[in-house]
Protein backbone atom coordinates (compact mmCIF):
# COMPACT_ATOMS: atom_id res chain seq x y z
CA UNK A 1 0.00 0.00 0.00
CA UNK A 2 1.76 3.12 -1.17
CA UNK A 3 -1.14 5.56 -1.38
CA UNK A 4 -1.96 8.29 1.06
CA UNK A 5 -5.26 8.33 2.89
CA UNK A 6 -6.73 10.61 0.17
CA UNK A 7 -5.88 8.03 -2.50
CA UNK A 8 -2.98 9.98 -4.06
CA UNK A 9 0.70 9.10 -4.13
CA UNK A 10 3.02 10.97 -1.72
CA UNK A 11 5.04 13.69 -3.43
CA UNK A 12 8.31 12.23 -2.12
CA UNK A 13 7.47 8.84 -3.58
CA UNK A 14 6.82 10.46 -6.95
CA UNK A 15 10.17 12.25 -6.67
CA UNK A 16 11.84 8.88 -6.08
CA UNK A 17 9.92 7.40 -9.00
CA UNK A 18 11.15 10.18 -11.26
CA UNK A 19 14.74 9.51 -10.21
CA UNK A 20 14.31 5.76 -10.59
CA UNK A 21 15.23 4.91 -7.01
CA UNK A 22 12.08 2.99 -5.99
CA UNK A 23 12.07 -0.79 -5.56
CA UNK A 24 10.62 -2.46 -8.67
CA UNK A 25 7.32 -3.50 -7.08
CA UNK A 26 6.66 -0.04 -5.63
CA UNK A 27 7.60 1.60 -8.94
CA UNK A 28 5.17 -0.71 -10.77
CA UNK A 29 2.34 0.19 -8.39
CA UNK A 30 3.08 3.90 -8.78
CA UNK A 31 3.10 3.53 -12.56
CA UNK A 32 -0.25 1.75 -12.44
CA UNK A 33 -1.75 4.60 -10.43
CA UNK A 34 -0.40 7.19 -12.87
CA UNK A 35 -1.59 5.16 -15.85
CA UNK A 36 -5.09 5.06 -14.36
CA UNK A 37 -5.11 8.79 -15.00
CA UNK A 38 -4.97 10.40 -11.54
CA UNK A 39 -4.84 14.09 -12.49
CA UNK A 40 -3.39 15.26 -9.16
CA UNK A 41 -0.50 12.78 -9.18
CA UNK A 42 0.21 13.41 -12.84
CA UNK A 43 0.36 17.16 -12.15
CA UNK A 44 2.76 16.48 -9.25
CA UNK A 45 4.89 14.29 -11.49
CA UNK A 46 4.92 17.00 -14.16
CA UNK A 47 5.88 19.61 -11.55
CA UNK A 48 8.79 17.46 -10.37
CA UNK A 49 9.97 17.13 -13.96
CA UNK A 50 9.75 20.90 -14.47
CA UNK A 51 11.61 21.62 -11.23
CA UNK A 52 14.40 19.23 -12.13
CA UNK A 53 14.59 20.67 -15.66
CA UNK A 54 14.65 24.18 -14.17
CA UNK A 55 17.58 23.29 -11.90
CA UNK A 56 19.36 21.53 -14.75
CA UNK A 57 19.05 24.56 -17.07
CA UNK A 58 20.34 26.91 -14.39
CA UNK A 59 19.40 30.49 -13.51
CA UNK A 60 18.50 32.88 -16.30
CA UNK A 61 21.29 35.36 -17.04
CA UNK A 62 20.66 38.70 -15.38
CA UNK A 63 20.57 41.91 -17.42
CA UNK A 64 23.45 44.36 -16.92
CA UNK A 65 23.32 45.81 -13.40
CA UNK A 66 23.25 49.47 -14.48
CA UNK A 67 20.21 48.67 -16.61
CA UNK A 68 18.35 47.31 -13.61
CA UNK A 69 19.33 50.37 -11.61
CA UNK A 70 17.80 52.59 -14.29
CA UNK A 71 14.61 50.53 -14.37
CA UNK A 72 14.39 50.56 -10.57
CA UNK A 73 14.72 54.36 -10.58
CA UNK A 74 11.87 54.59 -13.11
CA UNK A 75 9.33 54.01 -10.38
CA UNK A 76 10.32 56.96 -8.21
CA UNK A 77 10.10 59.21 -11.29
CA UNK A 78 6.55 58.04 -11.96
CA UNK A 79 5.22 58.99 -8.54
CA UNK A 80 3.36 62.25 -8.02
CA UNK A 81 5.50 64.92 -6.36
CA UNK A 82 5.42 64.83 -2.60
CA UNK A 83 3.36 67.54 -0.93
CA UNK A 84 5.73 69.85 0.89
CA UNK A 85 5.22 69.99 4.63
CA UNK A 86 2.73 72.63 5.71
CA UNK A 87 3.90 74.58 8.77
CA UNK A 88 1.29 75.96 11.10
CA UNK A 89 2.60 79.36 12.11
CA UNK A 90 2.75 80.27 15.77
CA UNK A 91 2.19 83.78 17.08
CA UNK A 92 5.36 85.37 18.47
CA UNK A 93 4.22 88.93 18.99
CA UNK A 94 0.98 90.86 18.56
CA UNK A 95 0.96 94.57 19.14
CA UNK A 96 -2.76 94.41 19.89
CA UNK A 97 -2.00 92.32 22.96
CA UNK A 98 1.19 94.10 24.03
CA UNK A 99 0.34 97.68 23.30
CA UNK A 100 3.25 99.98 23.86
CA UNK A 101 3.83 103.30 22.15
CA UNK A 102 7.54 102.46 22.19
CA UNK A 103 6.96 99.42 20.01
CA UNK A 104 4.76 101.27 17.56
CA UNK A 105 6.57 101.40 14.29
CA UNK A 106 3.96 102.78 11.95
CA UNK A 107 1.01 105.12 12.13
CA UNK A 108 -1.71 105.10 14.79
CA UNK A 109 -3.85 102.74 12.75
CA UNK A 110 -1.10 100.20 12.15
CA UNK A 111 -0.73 96.98 14.15
CA UNK A 112 2.35 94.74 13.87
CA UNK A 113 2.13 91.00 14.28
CA UNK A 114 4.99 88.51 14.14
CA UNK A 115 4.55 84.82 13.30
CA UNK A 116 7.11 82.02 13.13
CA UNK A 117 6.99 78.83 11.07
CA UNK A 118 9.76 76.38 10.32
CA UNK A 119 12.94 78.34 9.77
CA UNK A 120 10.98 81.48 8.82
CA UNK A 121 9.35 84.51 10.34
CA UNK A 122 6.51 86.57 8.96
CA UNK A 123 6.41 90.22 9.95
CA UNK A 124 2.90 91.45 9.24
CA UNK A 125 1.55 94.98 9.31
CA UNK A 126 -2.23 95.31 9.54
CA UNK A 127 -3.39 98.82 8.68
CA UNK A 128 -6.93 100.09 9.07
CA UNK A 129 -8.24 102.09 6.13
CA UNK A 130 -11.74 103.23 7.03
CA UNK A 131 -13.80 100.09 7.59
CA UNK A 132 -11.30 97.94 5.70
CA UNK A 133 -7.86 96.54 6.48
CA UNK A 134 -4.66 96.31 4.46
CA UNK A 135 -2.01 93.64 5.00
CA UNK A 136 1.67 94.05 4.18
CA UNK A 137 4.09 91.34 5.10
CA UNK A 138 7.65 90.24 4.80
CA UNK A 139 8.78 86.66 5.13
CA UNK A 140 12.41 86.15 6.04
CA UNK A 141 14.64 83.31 7.10
CA UNK A 142 15.62 83.45 10.74
CA UNK A 143 19.17 82.70 9.72
CA UNK A 144 19.06 85.72 7.46
CA UNK A 145 17.91 86.43 3.93
CA UNK A 146 14.53 86.79 2.33
CA UNK A 147 12.33 83.81 1.56
CA UNK A 148 11.45 83.00 -2.04
CA UNK A 149 8.40 83.81 -4.13
CA UNK A 150 4.98 82.23 -4.16
CA UNK A 151 1.41 83.06 -3.31
CA UNK A 152 -0.68 83.99 -0.29
CA UNK A 153 -4.41 83.44 0.19
CA UNK A 154 -6.72 85.03 2.75
CA UNK A 155 -9.62 82.80 3.74
CA UNK A 156 -12.80 83.36 5.61
CA UNK A 157 -13.93 79.91 6.60
CA UNK A 158 -13.13 77.83 3.54
CA UNK A 159 -13.72 80.66 1.08
CA UNK A 160 -10.75 82.49 -0.39
CA UNK A 161 -11.54 86.20 -0.14
CA UNK A 162 -8.22 87.51 -1.45
CA UNK A 163 -5.14 86.18 -3.16
CA UNK A 164 -1.83 87.89 -3.77
CA UNK A 165 1.63 87.11 -5.05
CA UNK A 166 4.65 86.81 -2.77
CA UNK A 167 7.75 88.24 -4.38
CA UNK A 168 11.09 87.70 -2.68
CA UNK A 169 9.23 87.22 0.58
CA UNK A 170 7.14 90.41 0.34
CA UNK A 171 3.42 90.71 -0.23
CA UNK A 172 0.59 93.21 0.14
CA UNK A 173 -3.10 92.69 0.20
CA UNK A 174 -5.70 95.42 0.58
CA UNK A 175 -9.34 96.25 1.29
CA UNK A 176 -10.13 93.28 3.53
CA UNK A 177 -13.31 93.40 5.58
CA UNK A 178 -13.10 93.20 9.39
CA UNK A 179 -13.46 89.82 11.04
CA UNK A 180 -11.65 86.52 11.49
CA UNK A 181 -9.49 85.27 8.63
CA UNK A 182 -6.88 82.59 8.03
CA UNK A 183 -3.81 82.95 5.83
CA UNK A 184 -2.30 80.22 3.69
CA UNK A 185 0.89 80.78 1.80
CA UNK A 186 3.59 79.20 -0.26
CA UNK A 187 6.98 80.78 -0.42
CA UNK A 188 9.85 79.05 -2.16
CA UNK A 189 9.57 75.40 -1.10
CA UNK A 190 7.81 76.25 2.16
CA UNK A 191 4.09 76.17 2.81
CA UNK A 192 2.56 77.73 5.88
CA UNK A 193 -0.80 78.40 7.46
CA UNK A 194 -1.90 81.00 9.97
CA UNK A 195 -5.14 79.57 11.35
CA UNK A 196 -6.48 82.79 12.87
CA UNK A 197 -5.95 86.51 12.43
CA UNK A 198 -8.55 88.95 13.70
CA UNK A 199 -8.91 92.10 11.63
CA UNK A 200 -10.37 94.88 13.79
CA UNK A 201 -11.45 94.72 17.38
Amino acid at each position, binding site marked *: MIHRRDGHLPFRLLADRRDGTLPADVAAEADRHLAEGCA*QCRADMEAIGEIVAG*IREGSLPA*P*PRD*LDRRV*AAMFAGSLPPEDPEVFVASLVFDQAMHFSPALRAGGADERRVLFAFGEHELDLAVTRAGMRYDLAGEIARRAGGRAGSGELSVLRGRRVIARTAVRDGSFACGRLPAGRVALEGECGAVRFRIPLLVLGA
Partner: protein
Amino acid sequence: MTRDPRAGEPDANPTDDATLVLRCLDAARGGDRVGGEGAWSELVRRHGPLAWAVIRRAGVDGADAADVYQTAWLAALQSLPRLRDPSRFAPWLARTAHLQAVRLRRTYGITRRVLSRVDAREEDDRAPDEDIERFETRSAVAAALSRVGARCESLLRALYYEDPPPAYADLARRLGMPVGSIGPTRARCLEKLDKLMGGGS
Protein backbone atom coordinates in the same frame (compact mmCIF):
# COMPACT_ATOMS: atom_id res chain seq x y z
CA MET B 1 2.66 24.56 -14.23
CA THR B 2 -1.04 23.87 -14.17
CA ARG B 3 -1.64 23.41 -10.46
CA ASP B 4 -3.11 26.01 -8.17
CA PRO B 5 -1.81 26.63 -4.67
CA ARG B 6 -3.97 24.76 -2.20
CA ALA B 7 -6.22 26.70 0.07
CA GLY B 8 -5.01 26.58 3.64
CA GLU B 9 -1.36 26.05 2.76
CA PRO B 10 1.01 28.35 4.63
CA ASP B 11 1.99 31.38 2.61
CA ALA B 12 5.16 30.19 0.90
CA ASN B 13 6.30 33.70 0.07
CA PRO B 14 5.06 36.55 2.22
CA THR B 15 6.15 39.10 -0.37
CA ASP B 16 4.60 37.45 -3.37
CA ASP B 17 4.21 39.32 -6.64
CA ALA B 18 0.62 40.31 -5.95
CA THR B 19 1.65 41.99 -2.68
CA LEU B 20 4.53 43.79 -4.39
CA VAL B 21 2.26 45.05 -7.18
CA LEU B 22 -0.30 46.29 -4.66
CA ARG B 23 2.44 48.14 -2.75
CA CYS B 24 3.48 49.86 -5.99
CA LEU B 25 -0.12 50.87 -6.68
CA ASP B 26 -0.53 52.15 -3.14
CA ALA B 27 2.54 54.38 -3.55
CA ALA B 28 1.27 55.65 -6.90
CA ARG B 29 -1.94 56.73 -5.16
CA GLY B 30 0.01 58.74 -2.62
CA GLY B 31 0.60 55.98 -0.06
CA ASP B 32 3.88 54.59 1.24
CA ARG B 33 6.50 55.82 -1.27
CA VAL B 34 9.44 54.01 0.30
CA GLY B 35 7.48 50.74 0.43
CA GLY B 36 6.44 51.21 -3.20
CA GLU B 37 9.98 51.88 -4.39
CA GLY B 38 11.22 48.81 -2.50
CA ALA B 39 8.46 46.66 -3.98
CA TRP B 40 9.23 47.84 -7.51
CA SER B 41 12.97 47.17 -7.04
CA GLU B 42 12.14 43.67 -5.83
CA LEU B 43 9.96 43.04 -8.90
CA VAL B 44 12.84 44.22 -11.11
CA ARG B 45 15.34 42.02 -9.24
CA ARG B 46 13.02 39.04 -9.34
CA HIS B 47 11.79 39.21 -12.92
CA GLY B 48 14.48 41.18 -14.75
CA PRO B 49 16.21 37.98 -15.89
CA LEU B 50 12.92 36.66 -17.28
CA ALA B 51 12.26 39.80 -19.36
CA TRP B 52 15.89 39.87 -20.47
CA ALA B 53 15.76 36.21 -21.58
CA VAL B 54 12.56 36.78 -23.57
CA ILE B 55 14.07 39.80 -25.34
CA ARG B 56 17.29 37.94 -26.17
CA ARG B 57 15.27 34.96 -27.35
CA ALA B 58 13.44 37.26 -29.78
CA GLY B 59 16.77 37.97 -31.44
CA VAL B 60 17.38 41.45 -30.02
CA ASP B 61 20.71 42.15 -28.36
CA GLY B 62 23.24 44.83 -27.49
CA ALA B 63 22.02 48.39 -27.08
CA ASP B 64 18.69 47.48 -28.69
CA ALA B 65 18.07 44.85 -26.02
CA ALA B 66 18.78 47.45 -23.33
CA ASP B 67 16.29 49.85 -24.97
CA VAL B 68 13.61 47.17 -25.31
CA TYR B 69 14.19 46.06 -21.72
CA GLN B 70 13.60 49.58 -20.40
CA THR B 71 10.62 50.13 -22.71
CA ALA B 72 9.05 46.87 -21.53
CA TRP B 73 9.40 47.83 -17.86
CA LEU B 74 8.06 51.31 -18.58
CA ALA B 75 5.05 49.80 -20.34
CA ALA B 76 4.57 47.46 -17.39
CA LEU B 77 4.77 50.36 -14.96
CA GLN B 78 2.22 52.41 -16.89
CA SER B 79 -0.16 49.45 -17.20
CA LEU B 80 0.16 48.33 -13.59
CA PRO B 81 -3.23 49.77 -12.52
CA ARG B 82 -4.91 47.79 -15.32
CA LEU B 83 -3.33 44.45 -14.40
CA ARG B 84 -6.26 42.12 -13.71
CA ASP B 85 -4.40 39.47 -11.73
CA PRO B 86 -1.33 40.89 -9.93
CA SER B 87 -0.15 37.36 -9.10
CA ARG B 88 0.39 36.87 -12.86
CA PHE B 89 2.85 39.76 -13.08
CA ALA B 90 5.73 37.59 -14.37
CA PRO B 91 3.99 36.12 -17.45
CA TRP B 92 2.43 39.49 -18.17
CA LEU B 93 5.84 41.18 -18.08
CA ALA B 94 7.31 38.44 -20.25
CA ARG B 95 4.63 38.96 -22.90
CA THR B 96 5.07 42.72 -22.74
CA ALA B 97 8.82 42.27 -23.26
CA HIS B 98 8.18 39.90 -26.15
CA LEU B 99 5.79 42.36 -27.77
CA GLN B 100 8.31 45.21 -27.49
CA ALA B 101 11.07 43.02 -28.90
CA VAL B 102 8.93 41.93 -31.84
CA ARG B 103 8.03 45.54 -32.61
CA LEU B 104 11.71 46.45 -32.78
CA ARG B 105 12.53 43.39 -34.84
CA ARG B 106 9.88 44.43 -37.36
CA THR B 107 11.71 47.72 -37.85
CA TYR B 108 14.89 45.68 -38.49
CA GLY B 109 13.02 43.92 -41.30
CA ILE B 110 11.73 47.16 -42.80
CA THR B 111 15.21 48.70 -42.68
CA ARG B 112 16.73 45.62 -44.28
CA ARG B 113 14.17 45.66 -47.07
CA VAL B 114 14.61 49.38 -47.69
CA LEU B 115 18.39 49.26 -47.65
CA SER B 116 19.10 46.08 -49.55
CA ARG B 117 15.84 45.55 -51.38
CA VAL B 118 15.65 42.01 -50.21
CA ASP B 119 12.29 40.29 -50.22
CA ALA B 120 10.25 40.50 -47.10
CA ARG B 121 10.58 37.32 -45.09
CA GLU B 122 7.68 36.16 -43.08
CA GLU B 123 8.80 36.08 -39.51
CA ASP B 124 7.12 34.13 -36.78
CA ASP B 125 5.96 36.78 -34.32
CA ARG B 126 3.63 34.59 -32.36
CA ALA B 127 4.23 34.71 -28.64
CA PRO B 128 6.51 31.77 -27.91
CA ASP B 129 4.33 30.47 -25.10
CA GLU B 130 6.36 27.34 -24.51
CA ASP B 131 9.63 29.24 -24.36
CA ILE B 132 8.17 31.88 -22.07
CA GLU B 133 6.75 29.23 -19.76
CA ARG B 134 10.13 27.49 -19.68
CA PHE B 135 11.82 30.79 -18.80
CA GLU B 136 9.20 31.39 -16.12
CA THR B 137 9.85 27.98 -14.61
CA ARG B 138 13.61 28.54 -14.64
CA SER B 139 13.12 31.90 -13.00
CA ALA B 140 10.72 30.51 -10.38
CA VAL B 141 13.00 27.53 -9.65
CA ALA B 142 16.00 29.83 -9.21
CA ALA B 143 14.01 32.06 -6.83
CA ALA B 144 12.75 29.06 -4.84
CA LEU B 145 16.24 27.51 -4.70
CA SER B 146 17.57 30.67 -3.10
CA ARG B 147 14.99 30.27 -0.30
CA VAL B 148 14.94 26.52 0.19
CA GLY B 149 17.92 26.44 2.56
CA ALA B 150 21.63 26.01 1.97
CA ARG B 151 21.67 22.23 2.51
CA CYS B 152 18.80 21.55 0.10
CA GLU B 153 20.16 24.00 -2.46
CA SER B 154 23.61 22.38 -2.44
CA LEU B 155 22.15 18.90 -2.68
CA LEU B 156 19.73 19.64 -5.51
CA ARG B 157 22.27 21.63 -7.51
CA ALA B 158 24.81 18.83 -7.14
CA LEU B 159 22.33 16.16 -8.21
CA TYR B 160 20.67 17.96 -11.10
CA TYR B 161 23.01 20.74 -12.25
CA GLU B 162 26.46 19.22 -12.04
CA ASP B 163 27.51 17.28 -15.09
CA PRO B 164 28.13 14.46 -14.50
CA PRO B 165 26.26 14.25 -11.18
CA PRO B 166 28.53 13.21 -8.31
CA ALA B 167 28.36 9.71 -6.86
CA TYR B 168 26.22 9.50 -3.72
CA ALA B 169 29.30 8.56 -1.67
CA ASP B 170 31.22 11.65 -2.84
CA LEU B 171 28.20 13.86 -2.31
CA ALA B 172 27.64 12.45 1.17
CA ARG B 173 31.24 13.26 2.08
CA ARG B 174 31.00 16.75 0.61
CA LEU B 175 27.75 17.60 2.41
CA GLY B 176 28.63 15.75 5.60
CA MET B 177 25.58 13.50 5.59
CA PRO B 178 25.09 9.71 5.58
CA VAL B 179 24.84 8.14 2.12
CA GLY B 180 21.53 6.57 3.07
CA SER B 181 19.92 9.93 3.78
CA ILE B 182 20.67 11.46 0.38
CA GLY B 183 17.66 9.90 -1.36
CA PRO B 184 15.09 10.83 1.31
CA THR B 185 16.63 14.31 1.71
CA ARG B 186 16.52 14.88 -2.04
CA ALA B 187 12.80 13.96 -2.14
CA ARG B 188 12.09 16.16 0.88
CA CYS B 189 13.97 19.09 -0.68
CA LEU B 190 12.07 18.71 -3.96
CA GLU B 191 8.82 18.77 -2.02
CA LYS B 192 9.92 21.88 -0.14
CA LEU B 193 10.89 23.55 -3.41
CA ASP B 194 7.54 22.66 -4.93
CA LYS B 195 5.72 24.26 -2.00
CA LEU B 196 7.83 27.41 -2.31
CA MET B 197 6.78 27.59 -5.94
CA GLY B 198 3.11 27.48 -5.02
CA GLY B 199 2.45 23.76 -5.37
CA GLY B 200 1.30 21.57 -2.54
CA SER B 201 0.23 17.97 -2.42
